[in-house]
């Protein structure tokens, strides 16, 4: 059957659009979750939406599994290939079709890079808000598939909150268009349902995004504390004050050590935790809010608080934060990133318990997290060359996930379930609820050909294990949220 499918693919695409040789396929074996890899049957590289639609219809007719892939930065194994299936690589569909400053929207193809939208919108004083740490390389199509987050979700929401319209080809081959240039709709929110489908419904072809006016003014403070708990207390005080910062991030001692090693970030001496808080808005508003914030931070008794004095200092603060994950690669040959969510008031308890689990198991865990929205990012360090180390790390990751759900939180704040967390779905949802989601998936994809083996626990197991940083990560090209 696969030979017939390849024959049909050859008829559909030019030879250079179809990768079949093993050395070509090797580049697509893995994504941001490097612990898994699988070789696809072929990689198709469409250049037009017409070709994408034809590919999906071919897959439907041939019952051929397909995985749409942007830049392959998924941390949950969302774009991991399926054995016997093809990869549809969306990277060449990278045209920004429209920047409309009057309606404050952008219309883009799926393969457009996240930051490219803001770059194109900048001459109009506009930007695209969602900012996953991989934003310089990840694609909007992938962001839509996984409802990606970033550091500004408490105030601005996730990808879904910025998607106004979607043209997509569903796994049945049907082409749909929902929403459009307006920020409002009537009828059920189909764009909302599609966003975050993890590639199980079909492939987005064109996406209409809302753009926001760029904030005129920022006030970014970095404060060092003697303990994680004190940093957490400062976050609680900010929340209680009624301020609504654009971002609140915390890094623990191990993450700080990594950032110092990787990008030569400088942090207050003796700090066991660093808090970053950012206000934004019109200068008059920031000037007033800043007085309140500075008073709150001063009252929280940091070792030192450093407000960024200019745009360069602000960028340096964010560089240290956004590089923290890949920087951890300098401390350990391998690590797993979790992204469970806990209610914010339980952050202190969650971190204490993670610390206890770390000591109990002897596995080092670094913490970098979105403190404003309770989204944890424990980095579980291990060495894949030591037999059993990966298994122990995964067992610890599983305990942390279960703890998040028990505390009333979520398995994932922004990375998605993908391959990595699919087995934990029953910890968060009942059998009936999973059945309901399965039925919805079947409505979009009755044959189960779109990214099978992801999100739902099941036997469709793909993959071998490997270890180490993604090659692009080692090169410093990408970083993890």
């Amino acid at each position, binding site marked *: 059957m696969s030979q017939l499918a390849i024959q049909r693919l050859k008829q559909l695409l030019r030879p250079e659009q179809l990768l079949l040789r093993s050395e070509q396929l090797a580049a697509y074996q893995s994504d941001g979750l490097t612990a898994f890899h699988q070789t696809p049957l072929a990689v198709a590289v469409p250049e037009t939406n017409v070709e994408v639609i034809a590919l999906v219809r071919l897959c439907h007719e041939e019952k051929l599994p397909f995985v749409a892939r942007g830049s392959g930065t998924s941390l949950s194994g969302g774009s991991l290939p399926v054995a016997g299936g093809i990869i549809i690589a969306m990277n060449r569909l990278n045209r920004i079709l429209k920047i409309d400053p009057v309606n404050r929207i952008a219309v883009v193809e799926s393969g457009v890079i996240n930051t490219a939208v803001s770059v194109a919108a900048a001459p109009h004083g506009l930007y695209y808000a969602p900012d996953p740490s991989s934003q310089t390389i990840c694609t909007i199509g992938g962001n839509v598939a996984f409802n990606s987050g970033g550091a500004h979700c408490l105030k601005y929401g996730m990808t879904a909150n910025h998607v106004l319209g979607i043209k997509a080809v569903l796994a049945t081959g049907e082409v749909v268009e929902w929403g459009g240039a307006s920020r409002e709709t009537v*009828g059920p929110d189909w764009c909302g349902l599609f966003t975050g489908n993890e590639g199980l419904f079909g492939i987005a072809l064109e996406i209409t995004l809302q753009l926001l006016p760029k904030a005129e003014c920022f006030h970014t403070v970095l404060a060092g504390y003697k303990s994680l708990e004190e940093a957490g207390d400062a976050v609680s005080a900010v929340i209680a004050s009624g301020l609504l910062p654009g971002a609140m991030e915390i890094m623990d001692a191990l993450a700080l050590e990594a950032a110092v090693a990787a990008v030569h970030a400088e942090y207050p001496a003796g700090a066991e935790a660093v808090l970053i808080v950012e206000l934004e808005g019109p200068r008059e508003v920031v000037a007033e809010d800043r007085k309140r914030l500075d008073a709150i931070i001063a009252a929280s008794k940091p070792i030192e608080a450093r407000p960024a004095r200019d745009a360069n200092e602000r960028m340096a603060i964010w560089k240290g934060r956004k590089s923290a994950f890949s920087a951890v690669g300098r401390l350990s040959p391998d690590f797993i990133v979790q992204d469970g969510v806990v209610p914010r008031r339980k952050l202190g308890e969650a971190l204490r318990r993670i610390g206890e689990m770390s000591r109990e198991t002897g596995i080092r865990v670094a913490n970098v997290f979105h403190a404003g929205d309770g989204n944890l990012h424990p980095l579980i360090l291990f060495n894949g060359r030591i037999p059993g180390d990966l298994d122990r790390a995964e067992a610890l990751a599983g305990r942390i996930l279960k703890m998040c759900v028990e505390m009333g939180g979520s398995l994932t704040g922004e990375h998605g379930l993908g391959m990595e967390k699919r087995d934990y779905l029953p910890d968060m949802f009942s059998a009936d609820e999973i059945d309901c989601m399965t039925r919805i998936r079947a409505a979009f994809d009755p044959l189960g050909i779109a990214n099978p083996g992801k999100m739902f626990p099941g036997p469709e197991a793909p993959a071998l294990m490997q270890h180490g940083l993604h090659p692009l990560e080692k090169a410093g090209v990408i970083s993890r949220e």
Partner: protein
Amino acid sequence: MNTTLTPANTADLVEAVRSTPRLIAVGSRTKPRLSAVNAVRLSTARLTGIVEYEPSEFTFTALAGTPLREIADTLAAQGQYLPFDPMFVARGATLGGTVASGVSGPGRFRFGGLRDFILAVQFVDGAGRLLRMGGKVVKNAAGFDLPKFFVGSLGRFGVLTEVTFKVFPRHTSRLTLMLEAKAPEFATQILSQAASARWELDALDWLPEANHIAARLVGPTEALDALAEEILNRFPGEKLTTEVADEQWNSLNEFEWAKVSKADDAKSESSLLLKMPTTPDTCASLRRTLEDFGGRVLVSSGGNVVFASLPLNADVTTVDAKLRGLKVPCLTLRGNAPLWLGARHDFKIAAAVKHALDAENRFPSLEECD
């Protein structure tokens, strides 16, 4: 079928769904057209109350029949609010009905509409199963986003029993400016320019009255005067007193303006009330089209949504054709017009998802209306 069931609690509601072959959930019926369909009504009137509210989490969970008034008051006591700015609050709108109708108020301009603040739903599907989707924390990416799908779904895919929302701290003060455009084309210019400016307006509505645009600033008191001065240097207009401004916004939230004559009660079916998505660059022509039918029109959220009040005897066939020509979809909230007017899409997936959630057609389909 004018039967109304009023279950006392969620368990009774589940039982009522299981034992009734054809039904539709209703709240306090402030948007009566949405449930005007031949089916047993399942009232959420007794499913009221806030189940969880932790101000430091910026979230609350409440039963679907909870009046928004109760929620707004509870949040206000903690200095918080629902940024999507719910409508018909004073008239008794419920949380569940507001989700099912998908209607947001002028305040949606700044941070987004109802869809941007809903986090989780508990609902009964067509098979009579009580299900929860989404997560009760402000950030969650686990599972399909059915909470968003239920926004605007008109109760045709399940009965909502409980909803979780994200909330925000309420700004310290607010200041409203009434801007005046000389002509409709200037009105759209003001909408577009003000929306892109550095001021970060909280609301921006082109009122039914001539060419008046209400612009709301929120934030620290000390900052607002300086911002207001800059805006009034750019566009002609004036500051409103707090009392006048509150009355103005309240009139919009309660659709007070949507009366055909002064004597009408805005709740009675004295006019058609329609909702349409639009865009800043097309809202003026849509407004003119609707005014030609004798309508009063509110262009809300910086030109992204139009609410129109048309006389009951308006020629809806022609309205429908005009809206189709403009490619504008339209939902009738009140009055005896078809539920849907204007542009529609007809994708096979809609029926497939309906079947997934309600295989037995226990709830009327989106197309069905009396």
